[in-house]
């Protein structure tokens, strides 16, 4: 029993048993919350006094030592009583101290404590130890497993590279001198590999290989250790390595998050927007929130004349191939003119120019787009004829006005779109557009630069639900 020792011998044993705990609580990352911090501090002061007494003995030393040991034991027991509130490193290191001070509490409640365990690091990691000497691998494994790390080992550079391919490793401990692929070569190959480049490498070598160690550091090794290892230094290097790896992993996660967002945007908008508009959106993703804003756009609505009755007389597969060919061509043309497809409605296409990005020549681009779509019908119909399918004709209406443009819908199913009176007006115009005709509202015509398009005579339309007559102009073509 401890009490039978000379107080001086006993005190020295207590000091050495307390070392792991004192080292642990001295780390800045370990904070002890009030109200226990006062007890931890008192405990530390007790150790300081014991050290002082042992260094400068007094006539009353034994008496004083016993009192100090009593105080240390008291504080240690108090902390033990509040074990659940303690920092993990305290939990880990306190039992050894309690055992050394001869606390009854500890011998009753925690009889399994035999030797003082070293403080566990807050972040245990996976360490790959690469060394051709089995006793070195064993030593590293023992030292690092004791503090909670998972150690895997390789006896050659070849094996190490294989393991690195399949296992997630936080830090590599790499012996410089090995038969076959040496440490320097393993390091070089790791740095060439995109996936392994960021994994911290600590080189291990003898003192005589200092030149090569320096070369390895220059080649990207993070640190080095000289043989024979100093266990404390080994653990410090490992901890630093793990910290670096964690930091890098967090950065990587962040980057992936950004990429996921980008993929989301492309998926959500890719069908409706031309690529460069998606790119512009990606630069300002805050614009992707639900809701919309008022903006002036030029609206295009097109459909295939008489498609419904046409479809009734065709097998469904023919209807689908007819539509797909038509939409494919038209979509390309609309994107070429930087329009945004709002919706495909049966055989109709609803597109806007000016949302999500507004440009000064939105109306002009819309009219050019309509003309290109009309011209493209020749190509579409040639393909239809070749496939034994009927010839199609389309009509296109354009209108310019203010709409609410934005992400409309629910969080789960949002869609970029426009709503507003101007949309309805466009639909009415389109309903009264003739076959193969492009009809534009006066609002659109007013925004066109002079001398580019040849327009026909104005036509007044009366539409259901709209009081005033809508003035429209047919677009005949581009001015020569």
């Amino acid at each position, binding site marked *: 029993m401890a*009490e039978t020792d000379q107080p001086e011998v006993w005190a020295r044993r207590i000091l050495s048993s307390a070392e792991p705990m004192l080292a642990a609580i001295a780390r800045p990352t370990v904070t002890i919350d009030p109200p226990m911090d*006062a*007890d931890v501090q*008192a405990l530390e*002061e*007790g150790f300081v*006094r014991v050290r002082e007494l042992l260094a400068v003995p007094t006539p009353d030393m034994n*008496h*004083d030592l*016993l*009192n*100090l*040991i*009593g*105080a240390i*034991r*008291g*504080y240690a*027991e*108090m902390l033990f009583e509040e074990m659940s509130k303690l920092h993990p490193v305290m939990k880990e290191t306190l039992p050894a101290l309690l055992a050394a*001070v*001869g606390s*009854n*509490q500890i011998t009753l409640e925690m009889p399994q404590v035999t030797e003082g365990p070293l403080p566990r690091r807050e972040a245990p990691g996976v360490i790959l130890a690469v060394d051709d000497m089995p006793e070195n691998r064993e030593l590293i494994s023992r030292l690092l497993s004791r503090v909670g790390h998972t150690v895997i080992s390789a006896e050659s550079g070849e094996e190490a590279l294989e393991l690195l391919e399949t296992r997630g490793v936080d830090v590599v401990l790499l012996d410089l001198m090995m038969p076959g692929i040496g440490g320097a070569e393993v390091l070089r190959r790791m740095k060439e590999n995109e996936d392994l480049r960021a994994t911290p490498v600590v080189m291990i070598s003898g003192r005589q290989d200092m030149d090569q160690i320096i070369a390895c550091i220059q080649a990207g090794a993070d640190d080095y250790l000289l043989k024979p290892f100093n266990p404390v230094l080994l653990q410090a290097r490992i901890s630093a390595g793990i910290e670096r790896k964690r930091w890098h992993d967090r950065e990587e996660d962040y980057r992936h998050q950004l990429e996921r967002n980008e993929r989301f945007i492309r998926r959500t908008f890719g069908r409706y927007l031309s690529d460069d508009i998606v790119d512009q959106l990606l630069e300002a993703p805050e614009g992707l929130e639900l809701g919309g804003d008022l903006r002036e756009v030029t609206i295009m609505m097109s459909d295939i004349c008489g498609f419904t009755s046409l479809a009734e007389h065709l097998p469904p597969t023919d209807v689908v191939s007819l539509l797909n060919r038509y939409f494919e061509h038209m979509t390309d043309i609309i994107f070429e003119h930087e329009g945004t497809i709002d919706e495909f409605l049966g055989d109709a296409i609803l597109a806007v120019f000016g949302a999500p990005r507004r440009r000064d020549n939105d109306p002009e681009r819309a009219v050019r787009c309509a003309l290109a779509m009309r011209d493209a019908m020749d190509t579409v119909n040639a393909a239809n004829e070749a496939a034994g399918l009927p010839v199609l004709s389309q009509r296109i209406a354009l209108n310019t006005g203010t709409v609410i443009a934005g992400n409309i819908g629910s969080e789960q199913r949002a869609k970029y779109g426009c709503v507003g009176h101007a949309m309805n007006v466009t639909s009415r115009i389109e309903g009264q557009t003739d076959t193969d005709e492009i009809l534009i509202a006066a609002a659109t015509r007013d925004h066109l630069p002079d001398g580019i398009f040849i327009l026909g005579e104005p036509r007044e339309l009366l539409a259901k639900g709209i009081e005033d007559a809508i003035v429209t102009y047919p677009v005949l073509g581009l001015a020569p």
Partner: protein
Amino acid sequence: MTQPVQTILLVEDNEANRNMLVRRLERAGHQVTTAADGETALQIMRKQQPSVVLMDMNLPIMDGWTACREARLDGLIRNIPIIALTAHAMEEDKQRALEAGCAEYATKPVDFPDLLAKIAAQLDASC
């Protein structure tokens, strides 16, 4: 049954040990006053009438043995139970403490749950 506030007088010259015991006793719900020598201890006992005294026997100015004997001769404080604290786990010390008039005896470093039990027994007996 309402009880007057029960105070423990702790007489201990070693500061670290004294602070620690005060903290532990207070955490256990006791009210504690302290003295660092036998003479001061006797003065406090006369003035404050603590319910129990925990007395280290090895004290400056007046040691615990002497303080205990004096307390037993003083009618004012004769009935205050004293628990002797000594560093020597020997039967003769225990005998010596009881002869000096101590009601109980505990060795240092104290087994705290045991000490609390002894304090509780003395408080019960004196009520």
